[in-house]
């Protein structure tokens, strides 16, 4: 127990929490991206593939679990993960700021990548986006023509506006950068390192981030251009 307390107290322990909550989030992100690709699938018997999928998410696991059981469990896990992730981010950012209060007159950024330098502010953008996104597609308050349960229709009507597209485009770019550093960082933080495989970690992170980027942005682009309606 003493060791567990020590681990958590250390900066590394907080990073471990960050990495574990991060991996839950990026697992979710990947599944979400795959789900959104249902926008590309043809309708069956007059039902949009996206709506069938949304219904599936609400009913999956029934009767073993109540209606919406899996969905609400997933939401709870995500909420806790975001909470842990943001809390650790804030704690660690404050420690870092205290550790390096004054900078150098002449700066040279060495190997710092744009992605690694924007984790904190990029994270804030993602958090704001997540809130907006929920109000937009889940509860509908900020959607101009929201119809509860009509997922496909809500999706299409939203992305007819170039402004909405722009918001999602910016958010996905931020996500792509966050994932590029985050996925690699995750391996490093959890000590998943081996001389035989280390050279694959960066390409994996890049591939993952890029796949998510393209996967999320393809359906909205097709809506914008009128291919999906």
């Amino acid at each position, binding site marked *: 127990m003493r060791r567990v307390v020590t*681990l958590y107290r250390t900066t*590394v322990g907080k990073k471990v929490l960050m990495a574990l909550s991060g991996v839950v989030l990026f697992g979710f992100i990947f599944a979400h991206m795959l789900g959104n690709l249902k926008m590309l699938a043809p309708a069956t018997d007059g039902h949009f593939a996206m709506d069938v999928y949304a219904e599936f998410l609400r009913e999956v696991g029934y009767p073993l679990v109540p209606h919406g059981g899996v969905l609400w469990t997933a939401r709870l896990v995500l909420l806790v993960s975001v909470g842990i992730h943001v809390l650790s981010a804030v704690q660690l950012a404050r420690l870092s700021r205290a*550790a*390096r209060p004054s*900078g150098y007159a002449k700066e040279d950024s060495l*190997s710092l990548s744009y992605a690694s330098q924007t984790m904190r502010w990029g994270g804030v953008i993602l958090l704001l986006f997540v809130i907006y996104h929920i109000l937009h597609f889940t509860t509908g308050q900020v959607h101009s023509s929201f119809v509860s349960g009509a997922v496909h229709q809500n999706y299409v009507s939203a992305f007819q506006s170039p402004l909405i597209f722009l918001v999602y485009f910016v958010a996905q770019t931020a996500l792509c950068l966050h994932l590029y550093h985050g996925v*690699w960082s995750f391996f490093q933080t959890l000590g998943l390192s081996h001389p035989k495989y280390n050279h694959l970690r960066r390409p994996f992170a890049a591939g993952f981030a890029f796949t998510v980027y393209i996967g999320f942005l393809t359906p909205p682009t097709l809506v914008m251009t009128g291919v999906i309606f």
Partner: protein
Amino acid sequence: MNLTLHVWRQSGPRDAGRHERYEASDISEQMSFLELLDVVNERLTNEGKEPIAFEHDCREGICGSCGMMINGVPHGPKTLTTACQLHMRSFSDGDEIWIEPWRATAFPVLKDLVVDRSGFDRIIESGGYISVRTGSAPDGNAVPIRKEDADAAFDAATCIGCGACVAACPNASAMLFTAAKVTHLAKVPQGQTQRWDRVLSMVDAHDSEGFGNCTNHGACQEACPKGISIDYIAHLNRDLIKATLTAKPDVSGKNA
């Protein structure tokens, strides 16, 4: 060659400090960076001014005392080189050079370019003991060690504790240093006795000194004059997690 230097001058820990400009003329390409400072200091002394304080000892790249920020890069522009081993041929006539001390809360400036790196000593101290036979020299091959492990331990052991990793890190984290020290001992049989407690204590000591957290930027490994890789940080993380997960409850004499 002739150079313009902007050197951080700070008379003591409580002084606010400022950059001062010095012209250095007739500098030979063969001089080391520290010799450049020696020349400037000689002139300052002759003029009755306070010479620039900087730390140095071996001047051959092995003691780790000469660290300073040169144009925003720890130990200057040449990779895998300490400031004392950096030669003026790495610069050209007319260059402006900014010279600053390491910046970190855990490395308070004592004077000019000299910082207090005793935090590193306390991290090492917290690492506890290793098991070696004292007295007569042991037989060199009495304890078999895999070649890969011996190499990894030796690479880690090349860390000279200069602090460049901390200076380069945007979080002023000393994880590269700590990881080098932890892994150096974790890779060899002599370090096994306290291996799991050591990693926890050293990381704990690292944090209490006020070094920041590692965010895996990798600037440290680029700045390190000894080429210590951030793979050692992953190794430290792995050992720390393992130490926590596999710790046995404190019941003496019952658990095998």
